[in-house]
């Protein structure tokens, strides 16, 4: 089953029968889907179902067979990982470095201005000179979000952005993501937290054993028993994590 995509929206990334293999293991099998501008998508599924690999495939950082097509406008992309890797630099320099890697032509002053904007956006401007690795887990995730947001991506991929965070940090991150989405940024995030999917996503992709098993509007996903396995997953998850 597939979500109805508005025809007037541009497909930023399209997968056609894309497969990712690691040795003999096929982490994603024959995925076909399109990500449209302005969407907020949650990718859900059990551990090992291929959520992270699907995100990396969409982001273009894993080898694959099949097709991965980008819009002609070459959308800018960024990804926030579950455990963000921060360099042993200051908070500010981590963001400046991301900007430099994203666009070498950006002048140094503009880099600093945009990095500070990003830090203000996530509430870390006051910690600009702190070593990034001395931040708390929640602050590190916010810094990773700032790093992703600073490059002004058309699509932001997020791999379980609130895993390992306490409820308060989780709430802060969710609130930032809601703000990004409200600004029109396209978000694609994997999550185990179905409550979060309900709150943040307009569309849910359910992964099962590497396959895109369901691709539905959020309301439909939570109301239709479209797949026996998805139903089992929902029941199992809702019992302890639906919030």
């Amino acid at each position, binding site marked *: 089953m597939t979500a109805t995509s508005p025809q007037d929206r541009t497909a930023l990334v399209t997968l056609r029968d894309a497969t990712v293999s690691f040795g003999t293991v096929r982490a994603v099998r024959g995925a076909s889907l399109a990500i449209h501008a302005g969407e907020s998508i949650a990718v859900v599924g059990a551990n090992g179902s291929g959520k992270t690999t699907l995100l990396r495939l969409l982001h273009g950082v894993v080898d694959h067979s099949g097709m991965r097509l980008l819009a002609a406008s070459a959308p800018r992309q*960024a990804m926030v990982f579950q455990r963000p*890797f921060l*360099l*042993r630099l200051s908070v500010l320099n981590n963001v400046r470095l991301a900007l430099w890697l994203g666009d070498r032509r950006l002048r140094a002053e503009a880099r600093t201005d945009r990095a500070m904007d990003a830090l203000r956006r996530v509430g870390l401007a006051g910690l600009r000179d702190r070593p990034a690795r001395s931040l708390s887990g929640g602050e590190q995730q916010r810094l990773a979000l700032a790093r992703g947001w600073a490059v002004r991506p058309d699509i932001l991929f997020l791999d379980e952005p609130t895993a390992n965070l306490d409820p308060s940090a989780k709430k802060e991150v969710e609130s930032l993501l809601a703000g990004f989405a409200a600004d029109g940024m396209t978000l694609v995030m994997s999550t185990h937290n179905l409550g979060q999917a309900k709150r943040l996503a307009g569309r849910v992709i359910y992964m099962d054993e590497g396959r895109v098993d369901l691709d539905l509007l959020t309301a439909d996903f939570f109301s239709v028993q479209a797949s026996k396995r998805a139903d089992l997953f929902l029941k199992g998850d809702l019992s302890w994590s639906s919030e």
Partner: protein
Amino acid sequence: MSAVADSIATAFRLIIGGDPALLRTVALSFAVSGTACLIAAVFGLLAGAWLAVAVFPGRRVVLLGLDTLLALPSVVAGLVVYLALSRSGPLGSWGILFTPPAMVIAQTILVVPVVTALARQVVVDALRDGGDQLRSMGARPLLGAALMLVHERWAVVTLLLIAFGRAVSEVGAVMIVGGNIDGVTRVMTTAIALETSKGDLPLALALGIVLLAVVALLNVVIALVPSGRSRAPAEVR
């Protein structure tokens, strides 16, 4: 026993009194080994970063060769440089045999594999943690590897200190290509060998104490380096 005690006492007098011959020898040792390590740092860090990410046919053979060169005997390095710089050798026209530059070349050959192999390992380990994320941000493999050298700068300092320790304490290569000429190419290790053979134990001991002190100081610095790392909450989570 008293002869040894007398020698030690004399050695300390030479050190405290700032004996000119002792100071000259120590200064040359530092200059030669320091220069060799600087050159090795440039080539070794770049080569190590490149080897961490490069994919090419025969890569495993190159890595095996690099590991073998880690144990390169200093006399063999000295012999190779001697043959290259001797009058009939391919670089004989340079006319630098039995000069400090020849010693620098020999020690550079000794420590480049050390710097390269250790830098490669540092980068490989760091890329395992964050390589994907740097790539996701737009870093090409070699740039990502170079950034990891910055990220792991304290580990880089440590490996450079290890390389300096290897250079400053070797005797075979500098003896062969330097010739141990007093006031010209005599460094601590060659002077110790010579003075011991002559029976001038105080000077040999004084140089030995300085050499030991240098190595001890390097160890202290290496031991202090990890405290400068910001290994903390992030990695402990």
